[in-house]
């Protein structure tokens, strides 16, 4: 009997500590939705109706769940991109631009090669996306390490440059016939399979989950991961112990950009099957919120991405059925960021009175 009681206590304790770890995030999300409800009330909508439409849209049926995961996949990539750079102490807000150039490079490979077998064409197209995204991360990295230009400004500027560069490409040299600014469809051999018909959910999500695992491994188990974290924590020992700080920063931003670029590849190969101007509704920004809510942890990112994917897919249903502008979701996101940004909130919650006292 004592054994069982002990076990139950242990379980409760562990459950309590786990709960405590996600408590600040959970409270941030709930508070954000509460504040969002005030915005809705003030603008003449019923929060209850709006939120229930959102939840029903996101999880109500198989189609909704498929759409939620479809929206979550690019966010996982952009969130991992933000996360990895942040582990190195770098604030990469350029995921949006990196995603765009990655998507375009992928589309280019997708439309340019004919008659390749799928097991060569698809990886080639993915690689192109990673390389282009990596290049778009390499530029701010060099500007940071060689010229001390702050990455927040340069990555933001590169977002605009990527937008106009890809915009030029699909309006002039690679424009498909017709009035839409898009490329011709990619070859079938480059496509990523759709895994939950009739939704657009593609194998891209499998790659993104795999990517989260790889990053977790790199950060926890490899020398490079250790170096990245040491530089990020600004450990005074970092330089003394022979870590090349600049090289680590450059590699982190390149890897960060490559991950975001892969997110773009996934959209092109799995969802749209071509590059369409303006296909990203702001996945780069979504990624930032997802990474913060995920506690800057690859596994946490997966959970947070499902939540934000649900907000986006449910948001579309919400807009269709209740007429609430979709931009509400950015207000919600920013509110979540504000509440997560407050470390004192987390510390406050860690005080004794919230601990599960089991002696």
């Amino acid at each position, binding site marked *: 009997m004592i054994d069982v009681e002990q076990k139950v206590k242990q379980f409760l304790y562990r459950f309590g500590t786990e709960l405590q770890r996600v408590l600040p995030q959970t409270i941030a999300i709930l508070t954000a939705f509460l504040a969002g409800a005030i915005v809705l009330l003030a*603008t003449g909508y019923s929060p209850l109706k709006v939120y229930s439409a959102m939840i029903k849209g996101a999880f109500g049926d198989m189609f909704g769940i498929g759409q939620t995961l479809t929206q979550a996949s690019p966010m996982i990539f952009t969130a991992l991109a933000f996360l990895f750079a942040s582990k190195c102490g770098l604030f990469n807000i350029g995921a949006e631009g990196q995603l765009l150039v990655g998507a375009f490079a992928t589309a280019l490979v997708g439309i340019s090669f004919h008659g390749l077998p799928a097991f060569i064409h698809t990886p080639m197209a993915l690689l192109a996306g990673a390389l282009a995204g990596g290049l778009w991360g390499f530029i701010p990295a060099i500007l940071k390490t060689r010229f001390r230009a702050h990455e927040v400004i*340069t990555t933001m500027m590169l977002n605009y440059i990527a937008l106009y560069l890809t915009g030029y490409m699909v309006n002039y040299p690679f424009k498909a016939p017709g009035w839409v600014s898009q490329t011709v469809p990619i070859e079938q051999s480059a496509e990523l399979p759709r895994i939950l018909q009739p939704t657009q959910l593609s194998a891209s999500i499998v790659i993104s989950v795999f990517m989260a695992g790889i990053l977790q491994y790199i950060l926890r188990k490899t020398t490079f991961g250790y170096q990245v974290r040491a530089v990020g924590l600004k450990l005074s020992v970092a330089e003394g112990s022979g870590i090349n700080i600049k090289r680590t920063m450059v590699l982190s931003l390149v890897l960060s950009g490559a991950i975001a670029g892969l997110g773009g590849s996934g959209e092109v190969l799995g969802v749209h099957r071509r590059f369409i101007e303006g296909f990203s509704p702001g996945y780069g920004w979504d990624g930032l919120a997802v990474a913060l809510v995920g506690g800057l942890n690859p596994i946490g990112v997966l959970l947070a991405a499902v939540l934000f994917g649900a907000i986006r897919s449910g948001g579309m249903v919400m807009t269709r059925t209740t007429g609430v502008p979709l931009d509400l979701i950015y207000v919600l996101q920013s509110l979540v960021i504000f509440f997560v940004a407050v470390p004192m*909130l987390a510390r406050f919650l860690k005080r004794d009175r919230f601990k599960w006292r089991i002696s």
Partner: protein
Amino acid sequence: MANLLDIINVGLFAAMLRMATPIAFSSLGGIFSERAGIINVGLEGMMLTSAFVGVVGSYYTGNPWLGLLAAVIAGGLLGLLHALLTVKFKGDQIVSGTGINIFAMGFTAYMCQIIYGSRGASATVTGFEAIPIPIPIIGDHTPLVYLMFAVAVLSHIVLFKTPIGLRIRAVGEHPAAADTAGIDVYRIKYLCVMVSGMLAGLGGAFLSLGHLNLFAWGMSGGRGFMALAAMIFGRWMPLGAFGASLLFGFADALQMRLQALGLLPPQFILAIPYILTIAVLIGFARKVTPPSDYKPYSKE
């Protein structure tokens, strides 16, 4: 070639002043915040929000001055939020600023649809009229352009010729010493970040009320970040940042005229100000030292 030379005229320089105005206001705002030890990457969002709030104010009152007042208050409130999160709660300054930018993006687009039924643009409202002054280039602008000159000079005087300016700089450079000297470090920080938001608010109000007389989606277009670059280029000195803003204004004015010529695809020309911003940082960021280490300060 003849076409290219044709666009360089008095009109181009007048346009340069107009395009420099929002950047100059925001970069002056950036200086106040950073001199007090708080990075403000939320300038972009503060500008965008104020541009919208300014239009709403003028829409409901029919008076652009009341719109301007609303815009400045909105900027100040976002500044207060930034100060709360970073000074009181010691949150990460860049996370908070980025949050403000995302908030502005969502809030303005959301409210624009609620009030005007369109995500892209608001209704046209009463904006500021140009007040002609018989001086070429500098004359014939809206009051906000004239105000920019005044604020630039005033910022310099406040920061470098007054006791409060000395306190602000002390708080940024060495908060512990400032505290020992009896300066209320937190109060100065709050004040400066709010002033920062209010100045960005003036810049935003210029975008919507002094320029187009309406709000358009994402109309700040990265100018808040250009303002940060102008601030660095100007070595955190008001008059230096003002000069740098003129350079960005020139690039913007040139960009619009080149576009009208139709020699190059618009995307290339639209990218010019962003490329210039990076170029400026490459040239100058290495040579300057920020006025603060931007670490959160705790009173013991």
